[in-house]
């Protein structure tokens, strides 16, 4: 969407991009879909295409409408306005049991009275598959999620991680056109969650199935998804690859929601088609950024700089634009990263983060040290809203 052709954005290159191909037909299309609950508009005229084989994430804070959007695709909610099509076919009026999508529920919703194998077989039984075919598919699924020995356990005899895998296997077993995952890893602890994120990605690659994940956890969305749709109050704020929404956010909301960001409110003074110059009371030496889009001289804009793109200097670098001076107000040591909170003379606090790439540091930074922060013009993003 907001990708700038001249800049290579992000550290990842992927050739998989069906959304960039104008002749590609989407698997699922949300067309101006609106849903209201009472007076509240949960989903507001959302249009969205998801392509075959894609791992798509709906990301947003709770109550932004992401779950409602997914439940409308599964058939548990009916849109008030707009259309949802799957493979070109309108889904309106089709009850959940006749839709070729399966959902993995946030609570897993495993049937407590059935064994693991019976849970996985449930969808296949509804399809009236022959017995031996069901048994073979169940074994295949158990192997896929590495639960071979637990076929005859009941759900309450499983750990959280095992339940999660049974829920996944149960939803995949009927070979749906698309798998819907509602906060699938929310109930797992941190370590297990990280492992499972990569497993989920590998699984999706292996099956070649289209995955739609709903999450409020940006890390989960960034790791797993090909594209992320950031939602805000029922609307789509931005759609793009993880690197695009992180490195080229289209608004202050997206910049702030995904990761940490330092925002400088500034006035545009010069635009030579390549470098934009801005002035801000918080940066006495001026600001500079590389930006392809034209921005009117004299208009207000926000300069967004990620903490890890701020360099911390103990000796003053040569004066010039993108140089800030302040004192260290706080230091957060995380092991792999260190975050510095630097207070500017005006009282504003700026975040700078540094990867702890080596064990030994010549001159460690101390509280109340006088420091200078700089950043490269191509590290800053100019935002107009």
């Amino acid at each position, binding site marked *: 969407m907001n990708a700038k052709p001249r800049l290579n954005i992000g550290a990842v290159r992927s050739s998989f991009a069906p959304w960039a191909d104008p002749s590609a037909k989407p698997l699922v299309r949300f067309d101006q879909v609106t849903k209201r609950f009472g007076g509240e508009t949960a989903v507001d005229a959302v249009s969205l295409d998801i392509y075959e084989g894609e791992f798509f994430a709906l990301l947003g804070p709770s109550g932004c409408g992401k779950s409602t959007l997914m439940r409308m695709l*599964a*058939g*548990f909610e009916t849109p008030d306005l707009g259309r949802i099509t799957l493979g070109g076919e309108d889904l309106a009026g089709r*009850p*959940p*049991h*006749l839709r070729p*999508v*399966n*959902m993995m*529920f*946030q*609570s897993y*919703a495993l*049937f*407590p*009275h059935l064994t693991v194998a019976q849970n996985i077989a*449930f*969808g296949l039984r*509804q*399809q009236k598959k022959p017995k031996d075919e069901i048994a073979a598919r169940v074994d295949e699924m158990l192997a896929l999620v590495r639960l071979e020995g637990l076929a005859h356990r009941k759900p*309450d005899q499983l750990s959280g991680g095992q339940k999660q895998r049974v829920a996944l296997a*149960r*939803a995949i077993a*009927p070979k749906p056109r698309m798998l819907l995952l509602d906060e699938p890893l929310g109930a797992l602890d941190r370590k297990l969650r990280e492992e499972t994120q990569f497993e989920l990605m590998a699984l999706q690659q292996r099956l070649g199935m289209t995955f739609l994940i709903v999450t409020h956890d940006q890390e989960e969305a960034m790791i797993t998804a090909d594209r992320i749709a950031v939602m805000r109050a029922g609307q789509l704020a931005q759609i793009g690859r993880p690197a695009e929404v992180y490195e080229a956010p289209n608004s202050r909301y997206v910049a702030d929601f995904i990761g940490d960001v330092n925002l400088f409110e500034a006035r545009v003074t010069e635009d030579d088609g390549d470098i934009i110059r801005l002035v801000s009371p918080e940066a006495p030496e001026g600001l500079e950024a590389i930006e392809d889009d034209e921005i009117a001289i004299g208009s207000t804009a926000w300069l967004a700089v990620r903490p890890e793109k701020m360099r911390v200097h103990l000796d003053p670098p040569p004066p010039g634009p993108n140089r800030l001076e302040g004192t260290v107000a706080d230091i957060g040591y995380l092991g792999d990263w260190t975050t510095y909170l630097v207070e500017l003379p005006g009282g504003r606090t700026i975040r700078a983060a540094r990867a702890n790439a080596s064990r030994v540091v010549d001159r460690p930074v101390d509280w109340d040290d006088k420091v200078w922060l700089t950043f490269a013009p191509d590290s800053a993003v100019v935002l107009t809203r």
Partner: protein
Amino acid sequence: MRRGPSAFNIAAIVLGMGFLYLPIALLVIYSFNESRLVTVWGGFSTRWYVSLFQNEQLLAAAWVTLRVAFVSATLATILGTLAALGLVRAGRFRGRTLFSSMTYAPLVMPEVILGLSLLLLFVAVGVARGFWTVMIAHTTLTLCYATVVVQARLVSFDEALEEAARDLGAPPWKAFALVTLPNIAPAVAAAWMLAFTLSLDDLVIASFTSGPGATTLPIRIYSAVRLGVSPEINAISTLLIGLVATGVIAVYLLSMRRRTAAP
């Protein structure tokens, strides 16, 4: 620190339990009395149980009671489960509070009033009183109990389970039959047991709504007692107590299982 029960605790328990169960214990003991006189102990015997099973009238009344209890409990459980589903699942609708309190009203309504109003209804409609009228009356009486029991379980039932079943290709009725029903089955069984025992020992409503040929056991016992207590009455009462106690214990065990099975 845990201490054993004090003398006061023991006295309180003995008094309370004695107050509750002494009359029943006496009745059970005297049902095994050899003597024809109810108040004089003449040695242990089961002769009244034997003669009870030769008393056609009492046996006929017992048979009516069991049939009424069975049919009305089944009907009340089905209707009560449906009502509970409606109350729990329908979400917020206009008049929901009114509707749910109306379901509970018979719980606190005096049985005399319920019996009288049913009698008036049957007379107004012109139905001859007999087996079916008692059965319907008992369904009315026990329906609200059944609703309360099933509703309590449904409230804690994760609706996502039924959604998951529908998502996996089961039509709504099948999702209910395959997933919801097996999981609320202990509560449904408990509701049936409760309805059955309530119907079994009801005297008031039965006496308003029964007719000739449909005399229930409590009515038979009541009228027999007015003519003088026979040890046979003690015997059948003991059997009735046994049946009701079994029912109550079964309900308790079912509800325990339900609790431990809950996640």
